[in-house]
């Protein structure tokens, strides 16, 4: 079993190495087989482990496999060790499972691309780092995966490296992640200083004994949360994610929707006990979460790029997950991560099929009426849209519902906002759906004639994911519907310690029914409204209506946050660098040095004038010196 677990990350790594070193000599088929095969094997292994793990007490408490010592200095010890417990297993399954599907999808999607092998090597590397992230048994190893996936994301966003804008987006993503990473890193250091260890087991055991709300624990959690903000695209570090859509669409599906961006949720879920001990941080997380959720949703309302809409949707959904974390519903957050992985990946892949079919067209204003032309995609997209809108009995309903319940229990005002958010979500998703598939085709007629066929490798994953999106919610059917909440029970050992401290207020069933009713009804209303507005449109104007134009513009331009950052941070930094160099460095710091040099030479130049060649002056100077000498010595 131990070897099997170790193999899970090793397999994608092996795939990466093979592709990296002999990639040039491999044809596309074998490259695709290697890439998909390794990830699939990893998925199978994860399944095997999962089978063994279910109900096995050693797994519930976490099973550690140590490979080798990585960094050890004095009492500090960071090992290359894997921890298998319910949480990591859940994530592992999602990563390898969805990962495999997306690999498969990519085989078709990237077929024509010259960087095919390179693409798969990056993708494999990503899976490696992602599994490392969730498998690590200490913070530093998590950080390894954390930075590693960030780096892979950098590579894949800038995959088409000839395009400067894409490269800019890649750098932006990496740097923004790095800002968060610095917080994470400092958090790890503070953890080590506080607890004397960075291994989960030892840290959590000690953290449980601590006084809740202590300054240090708040500092630690805030620093870690900073990392999560960067990785999971929360306010204020979310702007990279929409730009990251520059990468190939499967990459957006895998990295920027299903897996990497949820690493922040994983991290907080993993360290839940620390956060439980820091109520203040939890409140901050909830605040940022709901704010991000609303922000993403509103921007998503008016975007016209199919991938941008989905990107903001992701931002918004991630905000929702953080909201869940913020109210202590770790379980619900993880649940939503899983379902979100299904339906968001599906949405992206569906969008990918559309883009693929339309030769790279991404503007929904120039789509429409694709239902007949791409029925599979249409269906998959529809299922995903329903799922994300939270309409029962699809996957999104259960997870979102669980979140809303907890939010209400914690703070009804937040609940109102969250429901608003889900209404907006339903609206923009269906706006997207209707504009894309319903009505009539509004784009270039030439394209429609040469529609790319969606190959099996692409539609296969779509179907699988559609099924998952439809029924995925079953893993977490709440008590209310006499489900066992399988996921919740499975994860309970991980959150057990927190549960002791958190004391989540329980809602009566009546209240729950009412709440569910309200949220479902408003979501349905939103869908209908979207249908009314967009389903049969022939033309889509740039603006909605004149009265709303300024607001629309404002939202359409993403609240000008990018521009704000540009003016407040990027430009000043550039300016600062330039001025520091030109003025401070060259004129002041170096100037002083040069000035000293010149001063010395000037001294030499002027002093030598005393030596004017006339003996009379020399003698006079000597006599004066003698006089001075005698006078100072005697008087």
């Amino acid at each position, binding site marked *: 079993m131990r070897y099997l677990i170790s193999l899970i990350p090793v397999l994608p790594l092996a795939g990466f190495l093979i592709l990296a070193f002999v990639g040039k000599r491999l044809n596309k088929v074998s490259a695709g087989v290697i890439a998909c095969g390794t990830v699939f094997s990893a998925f199978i292994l994860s399944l095997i482990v999962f089978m063994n793990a279910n109900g096995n007490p050693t797994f519930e408490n976490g099973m550690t496999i140590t490979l080798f010592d990585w960094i050890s200095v004095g009492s500090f010890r960071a090992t290359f060790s894997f921890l298998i417990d319910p949480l990591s297993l859940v994530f592992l399954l999602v990563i390898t499972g969805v990962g495999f599907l997306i690999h498969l999808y990519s085989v078709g999607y990237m077929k024509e691309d010259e960087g095919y092998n390179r693409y798969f090597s990056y993708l494999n590397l990503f899976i490696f780092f992602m599994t490392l992230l969730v498998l690590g048994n200490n913070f530093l190893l998590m950080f390894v995966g954390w930075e590693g996936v960030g780096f892979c994301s950098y590579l894949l966003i800038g995959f088409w490296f000839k395009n400067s804008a894409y490269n800019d987006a890649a750098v932006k993503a990496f740097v923004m992640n790095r800002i968060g990473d610095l917080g994470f890193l400092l958090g790890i250091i503070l953890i080590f200083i506080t607890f004397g260890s960075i291994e989960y087991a030892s840290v959590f055991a000690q953290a449980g004994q601590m006084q809740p709300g202590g300054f240090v624990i708040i500092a630690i959690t805030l620093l870690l949360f900073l990392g999560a903000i960067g990785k999971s695209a929360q306010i204020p570090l979310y702007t990279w994610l929409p730009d990251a859509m520059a990468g190939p669409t499967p990459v957006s599906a895998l990295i920027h929707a299903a897996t990497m961006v949820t690493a922040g949720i994983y991290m907080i879920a993993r360290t839940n006990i620390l956060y439980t001990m820091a109520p203040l941080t939890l409140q901050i997380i909830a605040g940022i979460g709901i704010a991000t959720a609303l922000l993403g949703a509103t921007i998503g309302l008016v975007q016209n790029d199919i991938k941008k809409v989905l990107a903001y949707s992701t931002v918004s959904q991630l905000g929702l997950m953080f909201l869940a974390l913020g109210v202590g519903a770790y379980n619900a957050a993880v649940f939503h991560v899983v379902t979100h992985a299904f339906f968001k990946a599906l949405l992206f892949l569906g969008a990918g099929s559309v883009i693929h079919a339309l030769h790279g067209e991404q503007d929904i204003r120039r789509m429409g009426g694709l239902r007949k032309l791409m029925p599979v995609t249409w269906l998959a997209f529809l299922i995903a849209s329903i799922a994300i809108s939270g309409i029962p009995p699809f996957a999104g309903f259960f997870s979102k519902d669980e979140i809303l319940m907890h939010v209400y229990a914690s703070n009804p005002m937040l609940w109102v906002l969250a429901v608003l958010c889900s209404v907006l979500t339903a609206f923009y998703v269906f706006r997207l759906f209707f504009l894309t598939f319903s009505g009539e085709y509004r784009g270039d007629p030439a394209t429609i004639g040469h529609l790319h066929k969606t190959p099996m490798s692409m539609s296969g994953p779509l179907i699988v994911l559609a099924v998952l999106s439809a029924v995925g919610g079953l893993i977490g059917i709440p008590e209310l519907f006499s489900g066992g909440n399988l996921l919740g029970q499975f994860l309970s050992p991980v959150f057990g310690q927190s549960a002791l401290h958190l004391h989540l207020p329980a809602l009566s069933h009546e209240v729950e029914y009412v709440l569910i009713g309200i949220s479902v009804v408003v979501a349905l209303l939103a869908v209908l409204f979207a249908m009314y507005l967009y389903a049969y449109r022939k033309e889509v104007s740039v603006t909605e209506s004149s009265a709303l134009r300024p607001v629309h513009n404002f939202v359409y331009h993403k609240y000008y946050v990018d521009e704000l950052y540009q003016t407040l941070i990027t430009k000043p930094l550039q300016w600062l660098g330039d001025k520091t160099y030109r003025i401070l460095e060259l004129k002041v710091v170096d100037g002083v040095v040069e000035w000293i040099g010149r001063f010395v030479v000037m001294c030499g130049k002027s002093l030598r004038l005393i030596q004017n060649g006339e003996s*009379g002056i020399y003698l*006079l100077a000597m*006599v004066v010196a003698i*006089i001075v000498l005698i006078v100072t010595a*005697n*008087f």
Partner: protein
Amino acid sequence: MTVNIFYALSVVAVLSALMVVFTKKPVNSVLFLIVTLFCIAGHYILLNAQFLAAVHVIVYAGAIMVLFLYVIMMLNLTEVLQVNKPDLLRIAAVVSGGILLIVLVGSLKGLDTVASGGVDSTQSGLIERLGYMLYRDYLLPFELSSILFLTAMVGAVMIAKSDEKIIN
């Protein structure tokens, strides 16, 4: 009596020393210097150093000053008129000379430690004692001064000789 002689000699010495500095013609300077030197010789006699006085006169008046005169005549410098330094320098020279004087005089205190030897045993200036000391205690310097002269002689010849006539 001797006190008056002292004063007289001193006044003359100082005055003629000043004239050395201030006369225009070099020859006059030489002559005034000779006067000063004679006055100093007088002082030597007052100090009961007759032999020293004699040597002094012979060496200075008889040899050194003649040498000066000889050079002046040889180079025909009698007619060379004084070219003055810039006024500022001249003032500076006089002032610094004066200040040096004041400073030296002002700082020359502590003569009380000089033991005034027995007035009766004033033998220090006698030739006998001088000779005894010069050829016994000061034998090495004495010999060395011969080297000094040799150096001066060789050097003076080497430098002052006119090369034009010498063709190896």
